[in-house]
Protein backbone atom coordinates (compact mmCIF):
# COMPACT_ATOMS: atom_id res chain seq x y z
CA UNK A 1 0.00 0.00 0.00
CA UNK A 2 2.97 2.29 -0.22
CA UNK A 3 2.13 5.56 -1.91
CA UNK A 4 4.39 6.22 -4.83
CA UNK A 5 4.51 9.91 -4.03
CA UNK A 6 6.38 9.33 -0.81
CA UNK A 7 9.92 8.52 -1.79
CA UNK A 8 11.07 5.56 0.19
CA UNK A 9 14.83 5.32 0.03
CA UNK A 10 15.92 1.75 -0.02
CA UNK A 11 19.58 1.81 0.71
CA UNK A 12 20.47 -1.82 1.05
CA UNK A 13 19.09 -5.30 1.51
CA UNK A 14 16.11 -5.37 -0.78
CA UNK A 15 14.57 -8.22 1.22
CA UNK A 16 14.86 -6.41 4.51
CA UNK A 17 11.17 -5.57 4.69
CA UNK A 18 9.64 -8.87 5.73
CA UNK A 19 6.46 -9.71 3.89
CA UNK A 20 6.92 -6.98 1.34
CA UNK A 21 8.07 -8.64 -1.86
CA UNK A 22 10.59 -6.58 -3.72
CA UNK A 23 9.72 -5.44 -7.21
CA UNK A 24 11.21 -7.67 -9.84
CA UNK A 25 10.40 -7.21 -13.51
CA UNK A 26 8.99 -10.00 -15.63
CA UNK A 27 12.12 -9.77 -17.78
CA UNK A 28 14.37 -10.33 -14.78
CA UNK A 29 12.26 -13.30 -13.69
CA UNK A 30 12.39 -14.82 -17.16
CA UNK A 31 16.16 -14.38 -17.39
CA UNK A 32 16.83 -15.87 -13.96
CA UNK A 33 14.65 -18.94 -14.58
CA UNK A 34 16.06 -19.33 -18.07
CA UNK A 35 19.55 -19.55 -16.61
CA UNK A 36 18.38 -22.12 -14.06
CA UNK A 37 16.64 -24.06 -16.83
CA UNK A 38 19.81 -24.06 -18.92
CA UNK A 39 22.33 -24.92 -16.21
CA UNK A 40 20.57 -27.33 -13.85
CA UNK A 41 22.12 -30.49 -15.27
CA UNK A 42 21.61 -33.74 -13.46
CA UNK A 43 18.18 -33.16 -11.93
CA UNK A 44 17.83 -31.71 -8.47
CA UNK A 45 16.57 -28.43 -9.89
CA UNK A 46 15.33 -27.47 -6.44
CA UNK A 47 18.91 -27.04 -5.21
CA UNK A 48 19.67 -24.76 -8.16
CA UNK A 49 16.49 -22.78 -7.48
CA UNK A 50 17.40 -22.31 -3.86
CA UNK A 51 20.92 -21.19 -4.68
CA UNK A 52 19.71 -18.73 -7.26
CA UNK A 53 16.53 -17.33 -5.68
CA UNK A 54 17.44 -17.39 -1.98
CA UNK A 55 21.20 -17.06 -1.82
CA UNK A 56 22.10 -15.10 -4.94
CA UNK A 57 19.11 -12.86 -5.74
CA UNK A 58 17.46 -12.81 -2.32
CA UNK A 59 14.06 -12.71 -3.99
CA UNK A 60 12.67 -15.24 -1.52
CA UNK A 61 13.55 -15.89 2.09
CA UNK A 62 14.68 -19.35 3.03
CA UNK A 63 11.64 -19.96 5.24
CA UNK A 64 9.25 -19.03 2.47
CA UNK A 65 11.19 -21.14 -0.01
CA UNK A 66 10.76 -24.22 2.20
CA UNK A 67 7.08 -23.47 2.57
CA UNK A 68 6.59 -23.12 -1.20
CA UNK A 69 8.51 -26.36 -1.67
CA UNK A 70 6.05 -28.12 0.63
CA UNK A 71 3.19 -26.92 -1.56
CA UNK A 72 5.03 -28.06 -4.70
CA UNK A 73 5.59 -31.53 -3.33
CA UNK A 74 1.99 -32.05 -2.28
CA UNK A 75 0.44 -30.95 -5.58
CA UNK A 76 0.62 -32.87 -8.83
CA UNK A 77 3.18 -31.38 -11.21
CA UNK A 78 6.95 -31.37 -11.19
CA UNK A 79 8.66 -29.72 -8.24
CA UNK A 80 10.66 -27.52 -10.59
CA UNK A 81 7.70 -26.14 -12.53
CA UNK A 82 5.47 -25.82 -9.47
CA UNK A 83 8.22 -23.84 -7.75
CA UNK A 84 8.56 -21.63 -10.81
CA UNK A 85 4.83 -20.91 -10.69
CA UNK A 86 4.75 -20.23 -6.94
CA UNK A 87 7.86 -18.05 -6.84
CA UNK A 88 6.91 -16.23 -10.04
CA UNK A 89 3.47 -15.49 -8.61
CA UNK A 90 4.97 -14.20 -5.36
CA UNK A 91 7.30 -11.90 -7.28
CA UNK A 92 5.01 -10.54 -9.95
CA UNK A 93 1.62 -12.20 -9.99
CA UNK A 94 0.32 -14.36 -12.81
CA UNK A 95 2.66 -12.73 -15.35
CA UNK A 96 5.64 -13.58 -13.15
CA UNK A 97 4.43 -17.16 -12.82
CA UNK A 98 4.02 -17.47 -16.59
CA UNK A 99 7.45 -16.05 -17.44
CA UNK A 100 9.10 -18.18 -14.74
CA UNK A 101 7.71 -21.49 -16.02
CA UNK A 102 8.48 -20.53 -19.64
CA UNK A 103 12.05 -19.66 -18.70
CA UNK A 104 12.75 -22.82 -16.75
CA UNK A 105 11.25 -25.11 -19.42
CA UNK A 106 12.60 -23.49 -22.58
CA UNK A 107 16.23 -24.72 -22.65
CA UNK A 108 15.39 -28.36 -21.84
CA UNK A 109 12.45 -28.34 -24.24
CA UNK A 110 14.60 -27.05 -27.13
CA UNK A 111 17.26 -29.61 -26.35
CA UNK A 112 14.80 -32.51 -26.26
CA UNK A 113 13.22 -31.25 -29.48
CA UNK A 114 16.58 -31.57 -31.17
CA UNK A 115 17.16 -34.94 -29.49
CA UNK A 116 13.87 -36.23 -30.93
CA UNK A 117 14.94 -35.29 -34.46
CA UNK A 118 18.45 -36.70 -34.09
CA UNK A 119 17.15 -39.87 -32.44
CA UNK A 120 14.64 -40.41 -35.25
CA UNK A 121 17.46 -40.15 -37.78
CA UNK A 122 20.22 -42.08 -36.01
CA UNK A 123 18.50 -43.96 -33.17
CA UNK A 124 19.00 -47.35 -34.78
CA UNK A 125 22.72 -46.92 -35.39
CA UNK A 126 24.44 -49.74 -33.45
CA UNK A 127 26.77 -47.40 -31.61
CA UNK A 128 23.86 -45.16 -30.56
CA UNK A 129 21.78 -48.13 -29.42
CA UNK A 130 24.71 -49.40 -27.39
CA UNK A 131 25.26 -46.02 -25.75
CA UNK A 132 21.54 -45.69 -25.01
CA UNK A 133 21.56 -49.09 -23.36
CA UNK A 134 24.14 -47.75 -20.91
CA UNK A 135 22.23 -44.50 -20.44
CA UNK A 136 18.97 -46.32 -19.67
CA UNK A 137 20.65 -48.58 -17.13
CA UNK A 138 22.21 -45.54 -15.47
CA UNK A 139 18.81 -43.81 -15.38
CA UNK A 140 17.41 -46.72 -13.36
CA UNK A 141 20.21 -46.31 -10.82
CA UNK A 142 19.61 -42.57 -10.74
CA UNK A 143 15.89 -42.86 -10.03
CA UNK A 144 16.54 -45.53 -7.40
CA UNK A 145 19.04 -43.23 -5.68
CA UNK A 146 16.49 -40.41 -5.71
CA UNK A 147 13.89 -42.73 -4.14
CA UNK A 148 16.28 -43.78 -1.39
CA UNK A 149 17.33 -40.21 -0.64
CA UNK A 150 13.75 -38.95 -0.56
CA UNK A 151 12.69 -41.96 1.49
CA UNK A 152 15.33 -41.31 4.13
CA UNK A 153 14.05 -37.78 4.45
CA UNK A 154 10.31 -38.29 4.53
CA UNK A 155 9.56 -41.82 5.72
CA UNK A 156 9.47 -41.92 9.48
CA UNK A 157 7.70 -45.09 10.59
CA UNK A 158 6.70 -48.60 9.57
CA UNK A 159 3.25 -47.48 8.38
CA UNK A 160 4.94 -45.26 5.80
CA UNK A 161 6.75 -48.32 4.46
CA UNK A 162 3.40 -50.14 4.20
CA UNK A 163 2.00 -47.31 2.09
CA UNK A 164 5.10 -47.34 -0.11
CA UNK A 165 4.77 -51.11 -0.57
CA UNK A 166 1.03 -50.94 -1.30
CA UNK A 167 1.65 -48.28 -3.94
CA UNK A 168 4.38 -50.28 -5.65
CA UNK A 169 2.32 -53.50 -5.54
CA UNK A 170 -0.73 -51.74 -6.92
CA UNK A 171 1.12 -50.35 -9.93
CA UNK A 172 3.72 -53.03 -10.70
CA UNK A 173 2.04 -56.27 -9.53
CA UNK A 174 -1.69 -55.68 -9.73
CA UNK A 175 -1.21 -53.47 -12.82
CA UNK A 176 -3.68 -50.88 -11.64
CA UNK A 177 -3.58 -47.45 -13.20
CA UNK A 178 -1.58 -44.84 -11.33
CA UNK A 179 -4.79 -42.87 -10.90
CA UNK A 180 -6.54 -45.79 -9.16
CA UNK A 181 -3.59 -46.44 -6.88
CA UNK A 182 -3.28 -42.75 -6.11
CA UNK A 183 -6.97 -42.60 -5.22
CA UNK A 184 -7.09 -45.78 -3.12
CA UNK A 185 -3.72 -45.76 -1.33
CA UNK A 186 -3.49 -41.96 -1.29
CA UNK A 187 -6.85 -41.54 0.41
CA UNK A 188 -6.13 -44.41 2.80
CA UNK A 189 -2.84 -42.75 3.79
CA UNK A 190 -4.46 -39.35 4.24
CA UNK A 191 -7.16 -40.91 6.42
CA UNK A 192 -4.48 -42.74 8.40
CA UNK A 193 -2.85 -39.41 9.16
CA UNK A 194 -6.21 -37.70 9.63
CA UNK A 195 -6.43 -34.77 12.01
CA UNK A 196 -6.74 -35.99 15.56
CA UNK A 197 -8.37 -34.10 18.34
CA UNK A 198 -5.94 -32.77 20.87
CA UNK A 199 -5.77 -35.12 23.86
CA UNK A 200 -8.87 -34.69 25.98
CA UNK A 201 -8.71 -33.73 29.64
CA UNK A 202 -9.43 -37.25 30.79
CA UNK A 203 -6.24 -38.50 29.16
CA UNK A 204 -4.11 -36.09 31.08
CA UNK A 205 -4.02 -38.12 34.25
Amino acid at each position, binding site marked *: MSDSSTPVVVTQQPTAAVGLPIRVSAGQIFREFLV*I*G*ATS*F*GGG*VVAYLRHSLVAKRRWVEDKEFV*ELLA*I*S*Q*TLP*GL*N*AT*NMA*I*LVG*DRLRGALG*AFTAICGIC*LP*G*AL*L*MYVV*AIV*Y*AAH*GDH*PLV*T*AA*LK*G*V*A*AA*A*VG*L*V*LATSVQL*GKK*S*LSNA*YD*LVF*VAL*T*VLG*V*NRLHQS*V*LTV*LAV*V*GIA*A*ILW*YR*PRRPPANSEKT
Partner: protein
Amino acid sequence: MNQIPALLRVFGYLSLLTVGGGMAAFPEMKTLTVDVHHWMTFAQLVHLYSVGQMAPGPNMMMIVAIGEWVAGLLGAVVVLLAFFGPTACLALGTGRLWKRLESWPWRSSIQRGLAPVSIGLLLAGCFTLAKGAIFGLETATIAVAVLLILLQYNINPALLVLAAAIIGALSFAAG
Protein backbone atom coordinates in the same frame (compact mmCIF):
# COMPACT_ATOMS: atom_id res chain seq x y z
CA MET B 1 -4.38 -39.32 -38.86
CA ASN B 2 -4.58 -36.26 -36.65
CA GLN B 3 -3.03 -37.15 -33.32
CA ILE B 4 -3.25 -33.71 -31.72
CA PRO B 5 -6.43 -34.35 -29.68
CA ALA B 6 -5.00 -37.64 -28.44
CA LEU B 7 -1.73 -35.95 -27.41
CA LEU B 8 -3.72 -33.29 -25.58
CA ARG B 9 -5.79 -35.88 -23.74
CA VAL B 10 -2.93 -38.21 -22.86
CA PHE B 11 -0.54 -35.58 -21.56
CA GLY B 12 -3.23 -33.56 -19.80
CA TYR B 13 -4.17 -36.75 -17.96
CA LEU B 14 -0.55 -37.72 -17.24
CA SER B 15 0.19 -34.32 -15.75
CA LEU B 16 -2.35 -34.91 -12.99
CA LEU B 17 -0.62 -38.13 -11.97
CA THR B 18 2.76 -36.52 -11.34
CA VAL B 19 2.38 -36.44 -7.56
CA GLY B 20 5.84 -36.21 -6.06
CA GLY B 21 7.57 -36.02 -9.43
CA GLY B 22 7.38 -36.85 -13.11
CA MET B 23 8.42 -40.45 -12.61
CA ALA B 24 5.09 -41.17 -10.91
CA ALA B 25 3.40 -40.89 -14.30
CA PHE B 26 5.88 -43.16 -16.08
CA PRO B 27 3.97 -46.48 -15.81
CA GLU B 28 0.86 -44.80 -17.19
CA MET B 29 2.90 -43.04 -19.86
CA LYS B 30 4.22 -46.41 -20.98
CA THR B 31 0.68 -47.85 -21.16
CA LEU B 32 -0.73 -44.89 -23.09
CA THR B 33 2.08 -44.03 -25.50
CA VAL B 34 3.25 -47.59 -26.21
CA ASP B 35 0.34 -50.00 -25.66
CA VAL B 36 -2.69 -47.85 -26.39
CA HIS B 37 -1.59 -45.34 -29.04
CA HIS B 38 1.44 -47.16 -30.50
CA TRP B 39 3.33 -43.89 -30.86
CA MET B 40 6.61 -45.65 -30.11
CA THR B 41 8.11 -48.87 -28.84
CA PHE B 42 8.84 -49.38 -25.16
CA ALA B 43 12.57 -49.35 -25.96
CA GLN B 44 12.24 -45.97 -27.65
CA LEU B 45 10.32 -44.55 -24.69
CA VAL B 46 12.98 -45.82 -22.28
CA HIS B 47 15.70 -44.30 -24.47
CA LEU B 48 14.02 -40.91 -24.64
CA TYR B 49 13.33 -40.88 -20.93
CA SER B 50 16.92 -41.81 -20.13
CA VAL B 51 18.44 -39.25 -22.48
CA GLY B 52 16.10 -36.72 -20.88
CA GLN B 53 17.90 -37.32 -17.60
CA MET B 54 20.90 -35.55 -19.09
CA ALA B 55 18.93 -32.48 -20.14
CA PRO B 56 18.88 -29.47 -17.82
CA GLY B 57 15.68 -28.10 -16.31
CA PRO B 58 12.55 -29.95 -15.17
CA ASN B 59 13.26 -33.64 -15.60
CA MET B 60 10.32 -34.59 -17.82
CA MET B 61 11.22 -32.49 -20.84
CA MET B 62 11.45 -35.75 -22.79
CA ILE B 63 7.71 -35.35 -23.34
CA VAL B 64 8.66 -32.72 -25.93
CA ALA B 65 10.46 -35.44 -27.86
CA ILE B 66 7.32 -37.62 -27.82
CA GLY B 67 5.26 -34.70 -29.10
CA GLU B 68 7.74 -33.98 -31.87
CA TRP B 69 7.87 -37.65 -32.74
CA VAL B 70 4.10 -37.93 -33.07
CA ALA B 71 3.15 -34.61 -34.66
CA GLY B 72 6.20 -32.41 -35.29
CA LEU B 73 6.58 -28.92 -33.88
CA LEU B 74 2.86 -28.55 -33.23
CA GLY B 75 2.88 -31.84 -31.36
CA ALA B 76 5.75 -30.67 -29.18
CA VAL B 77 3.98 -27.44 -28.29
CA VAL B 78 0.67 -29.18 -27.62
CA VAL B 79 2.34 -31.71 -25.33
CA LEU B 80 4.07 -28.94 -23.37
CA LEU B 81 0.81 -27.05 -22.88
CA ALA B 82 -1.14 -30.18 -21.96
CA PHE B 83 1.47 -31.44 -19.54
CA PHE B 84 2.29 -28.20 -17.76
CA GLY B 85 -0.91 -26.14 -18.18
CA PRO B 86 -3.24 -27.95 -15.76
CA THR B 87 -0.72 -28.38 -12.95
CA ALA B 88 0.51 -24.80 -13.39
CA CYS B 89 -3.02 -23.48 -12.90
CA LEU B 90 -3.51 -25.77 -9.92
CA ALA B 91 -0.25 -24.58 -8.34
CA LEU B 92 -1.15 -20.94 -8.94
CA GLY B 93 -4.56 -21.35 -7.32
CA THR B 94 -3.41 -23.46 -4.41
CA GLY B 95 -0.43 -21.20 -3.76
CA ARG B 96 -2.76 -18.26 -3.34
CA LEU B 97 -5.15 -20.21 -1.10
CA TRP B 98 -2.41 -21.83 0.97
CA LYS B 99 -2.26 -19.22 3.72
CA ARG B 100 -5.98 -19.53 4.21
CA LEU B 101 -5.67 -23.30 4.34
CA GLU B 102 -3.27 -23.02 7.25
CA SER B 103 -5.98 -23.49 9.82
CA TRP B 104 -7.52 -26.38 7.88
CA PRO B 105 -6.54 -29.49 9.87
CA TRP B 106 -6.57 -31.75 6.82
CA ARG B 107 -3.79 -29.78 5.16
CA SER B 108 -1.05 -31.48 7.11
CA SER B 109 -2.86 -34.83 6.85
CA ILE B 110 -2.72 -34.57 3.07
CA GLN B 111 0.94 -33.60 3.11
CA ARG B 112 1.81 -36.35 5.56
CA GLY B 113 -0.24 -39.03 3.80
CA LEU B 114 0.93 -38.26 0.28
CA ALA B 115 4.62 -38.37 1.22
CA PRO B 116 4.93 -42.20 1.35
CA VAL B 117 2.57 -42.64 -1.60
CA SER B 118 4.66 -40.34 -3.79
CA ILE B 119 7.79 -42.32 -2.93
CA GLY B 120 5.91 -45.52 -3.79
CA LEU B 121 4.94 -44.01 -7.15
CA LEU B 122 8.55 -43.02 -7.79
CA LEU B 123 9.69 -46.58 -7.08
CA ALA B 124 6.90 -48.04 -9.21
CA GLY B 125 8.00 -45.80 -12.08
CA CYS B 126 11.55 -46.91 -11.54
CA PHE B 127 10.60 -50.59 -11.73
CA THR B 128 8.66 -49.99 -14.93
CA LEU B 129 11.70 -48.23 -16.37
CA ALA B 130 13.91 -51.12 -15.25
CA LYS B 131 11.80 -53.58 -17.25
CA GLY B 132 12.87 -51.78 -20.39
CA ALA B 133 16.43 -51.02 -19.34
CA ILE B 134 17.86 -53.93 -17.37
CA PHE B 135 18.50 -56.99 -19.52
CA GLY B 136 21.34 -58.83 -17.90
CA LEU B 137 24.37 -58.63 -15.74
CA GLU B 138 26.01 -55.70 -17.54
CA THR B 139 23.06 -53.34 -17.40
CA ALA B 140 22.26 -54.39 -13.83
CA THR B 141 25.85 -53.65 -12.85
CA ILE B 142 25.69 -50.16 -14.36
CA ALA B 143 22.43 -49.43 -12.51
CA VAL B 144 23.73 -50.66 -9.16
CA ALA B 145 27.03 -48.83 -9.63
CA VAL B 146 25.22 -45.54 -10.34
CA LEU B 147 22.96 -46.10 -7.32
CA LEU B 148 25.86 -46.76 -4.96
CA ILE B 149 28.02 -43.93 -6.27
CA LEU B 150 25.17 -41.44 -5.93
CA LEU B 151 24.38 -42.56 -2.39
CA GLN B 152 28.01 -42.37 -1.42
CA TYR B 153 29.34 -39.31 -3.20
CA ASN B 154 28.01 -35.89 -4.01
CA ILE B 155 28.53 -36.11 -7.76
CA ASN B 156 26.45 -34.64 -10.58
CA PRO B 157 24.20 -37.47 -11.86
CA ALA B 158 24.38 -36.14 -15.43
CA LEU B 159 28.09 -36.97 -15.47
CA LEU B 160 27.37 -40.54 -14.42
CA VAL B 161 24.73 -40.94 -17.10
CA LEU B 162 27.22 -39.61 -19.64
CA ALA B 163 29.86 -42.04 -18.40
CA ALA B 164 27.34 -44.88 -18.73
CA ALA B 165 26.73 -43.83 -22.35
CA ILE B 166 30.43 -44.17 -23.11
CA ILE B 167 30.71 -47.49 -21.27
CA GLY B 168 27.63 -48.70 -23.15
CA ALA B 169 29.00 -47.63 -26.52
CA LEU B 170 32.32 -49.32 -25.84
CA SER B 171 31.01 -52.58 -24.42
CA PHE B 172 27.63 -53.25 -26.04
CA ALA B 173 28.46 -52.19 -29.59
CA ALA B 174 31.01 -54.97 -29.98
CA GLY B 175 28.76 -57.68 -28.63
